[in-house]
């Protein structure tokens, strides 16, 4: 395979091949196969990103069939940045997940993660509304299998709950796409963007697509499934869910809104999404503040952080777009780091209460350093990816004379500071007597630190991701 197609196909084919091979080989071979597949995929993604950064947007009609009949793939700066995020964050999470389970689950986790990775890469590259539905479903089914990998009752119930909320979400999306096809006879995102006109069909379709994707992302008040699912799933899987899988549906929403819907919808709809986002920021942070279980604090923090990403819709300037995507990327790194750190703490002391962290900072320095650095990014203290994201959004709120969104950002950051400090405060106290701390392999302690450093680096060198993002960005 040569040319554009090869560049875009390898990031999808390699994890798929790796997953199938990893299922076939025995217990000992899984790590090798998955490791080789991961490194190969990462390399393919880096090559694609480099190509997009130097040569601009890549476009490919699969099988030589162009739109309107065929399925198109497109890699612009946004897609490239998301592919890179998934590759880096996902690899680090799966490194940490080794030996997290028993040997059987360990053997199944890696192939399942490779399947999800394949689906996510295909999702980022699709420029076809129906292909986006298919890849979203593949991601969902893969995610459910990951959630239930341990086959215990909490995990199974969390998986079924996730499935039963994700299904109506994707069906709403599919109905919206069906209506769009009925009205405009197009599925290709570019063609839809040209053809869509204001009118009742477009409004209903946009509503269905938006509700469906908000349910999957999830945006307040559709977030009710998130905390129990995130708590029931094994911790490495929760990290994948929060950092990457929930971003898949947000990415689709972002794409369709900015390229197809927002030119034909009234500004009030964007304002409405902004209000929901603001409510999510505040409500999620308040709930995070009131939890007593460590993992629930971090889970509710996701509800809050997802809210920020919807502040984009009322402002919709280029700065706000960049800010929202920057938040997606830095949240992926920071939140993954925090969940992985929580997993390490659970493994070391077996305590899930917030009070259980007392004295642990001395025994697990890297884990708590990761937690602190991840927290810095969530709060938005410079220098961190979270800071750059919030700065861009704050600027956009001033630019568009909508200062209240800036106020939401600041109050949300204060609340985030409160819940992060609540986790960290106890960890510096002396270790209470009688607590046994199992030692954690160094590799497992370094994985969350690497993720947290990634969030930090995003704040130090913002020009690379921001430059990449501007490649082929709409308007």
């Amino acid at each position, binding site marked *: 395979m040569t040319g554009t197609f090869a560049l875009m196909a390898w990031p999808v084919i390699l994890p798929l091949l790796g997953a199938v091979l990893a299922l076939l080989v025995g217990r000992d071979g899984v790590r090798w196969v998955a490791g080789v597949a991961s490194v190969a995929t990462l390399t393919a993604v880096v090559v694609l990103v480099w190509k997009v950064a130097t040569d601009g947007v890549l476009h490919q009609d699969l099988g030589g069939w162009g739109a309107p009949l065929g399925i198109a793939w497109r890699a612009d700066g946004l897609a490239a940045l998301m592919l890179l995020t998934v590759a880096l964050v996902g690899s680090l999470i799966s490194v940490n997940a080794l030996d997290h389970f028993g040997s059987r689950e360990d053997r199944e986790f890696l192939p399942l993660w490779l399947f999800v990775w394949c689906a996510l890469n295909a999702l980022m590259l699709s420029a076809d509304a*129906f292909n986006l539905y*298919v890849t979203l479903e593949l991601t969902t089914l893969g995610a459910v299998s990951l959630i239930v990998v341990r086959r215990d009752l909490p995990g199974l119930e969390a998986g079924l709950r996730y499935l039963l909320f994700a299904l*109506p979400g994707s069906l709403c999306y599919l109905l919206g796409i069906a209506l769009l096809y009925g009205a405009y006879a197009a599925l290709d995102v570019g063609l839809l963007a040209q053809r869509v006109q204001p009118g009742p069909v477009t409004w209903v379709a946009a509503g269905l697509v938006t509700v469906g994707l908000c349910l999957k992302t999830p945006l307040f008040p559709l977030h009710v499934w998130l905390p129990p699912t995130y708590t029931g799933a094994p911790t490495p899987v929760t990290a994948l869910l929060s950092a990457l899988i929930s971003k898949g549906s947000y990415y689709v929403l972002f794409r369709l809104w900015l390229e197809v819907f927002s030119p034909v919808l009234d500004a009030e709809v964007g304002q409405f999404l902004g209000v929901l986002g603001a409510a999510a920021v505040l409500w999620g942070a308040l709930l995070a503040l009131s939890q007593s279980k460590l993992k629930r604090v971090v889970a509710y923090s996701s509800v809050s952080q997802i809210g920020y990403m919807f502040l984009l819709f009322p402002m919709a300037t280029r700065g706000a777009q960049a800010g929202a995507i920057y938040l997606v990327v830095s949240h992926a790194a920071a939140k993954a780091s925090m969940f992985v750190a929580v997993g390490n703490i659970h493994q070391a002391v077996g305590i899930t209460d917030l009070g259980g962290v007392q004295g642990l900072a001395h025994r697990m320095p890297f884990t708590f350093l990761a937690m602190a650095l991840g927290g810095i990014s969530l709060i938005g203290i410079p220098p961190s990816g979270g800071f750059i994201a919030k700065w861009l959004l704050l600027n956009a709120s001033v630019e568009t004379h909508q200062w209240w969104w800036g106020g939401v950002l600041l109050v949300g950051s204060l609340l985030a500071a409160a819940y992060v400090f609540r986790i960290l405060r106890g960890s510096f106290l002396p270790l209470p007597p009688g607590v046994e701390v199992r030692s954690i392999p160094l590799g497992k302690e370094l994985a969350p630190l690497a993720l947290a450093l990634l969030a930090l680096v995003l704040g130090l060198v913002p020009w690379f991701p921001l430059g990449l993002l501007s490649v082929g960005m709409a308007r």
Partner: protein
Amino acid sequence: MNPWVLYALSGMVMFSVGLVGLFTHQHVVKRILAANIMGSGVLLVLVALARRVPSGPPDPVPHALVLTGIVVSVSSTALGVALARRISRLKSMDAASSRTGPEGS
């Protein structure tokens, strides 16, 4: 009224009935079935849209989409049912062990 409008409207009705069912029922099997009804509603809308232009052959694209949709729907239903079965088996084992074992509760 064109027959395709009737089909499309029926599809919308099925979608709504399924949606309501999914969020009002507690029983897992009923919820999975409700999701299935929703899905069939969407597919019916797609089939109907293929016949929008009464003269000439039906549009093949929605038919292709329906086929893919059926595959997705079968897989997700199978996964849901498998999970539900496993959960009910684990729960009945828990219940049995708490009845017989002294330390079960």
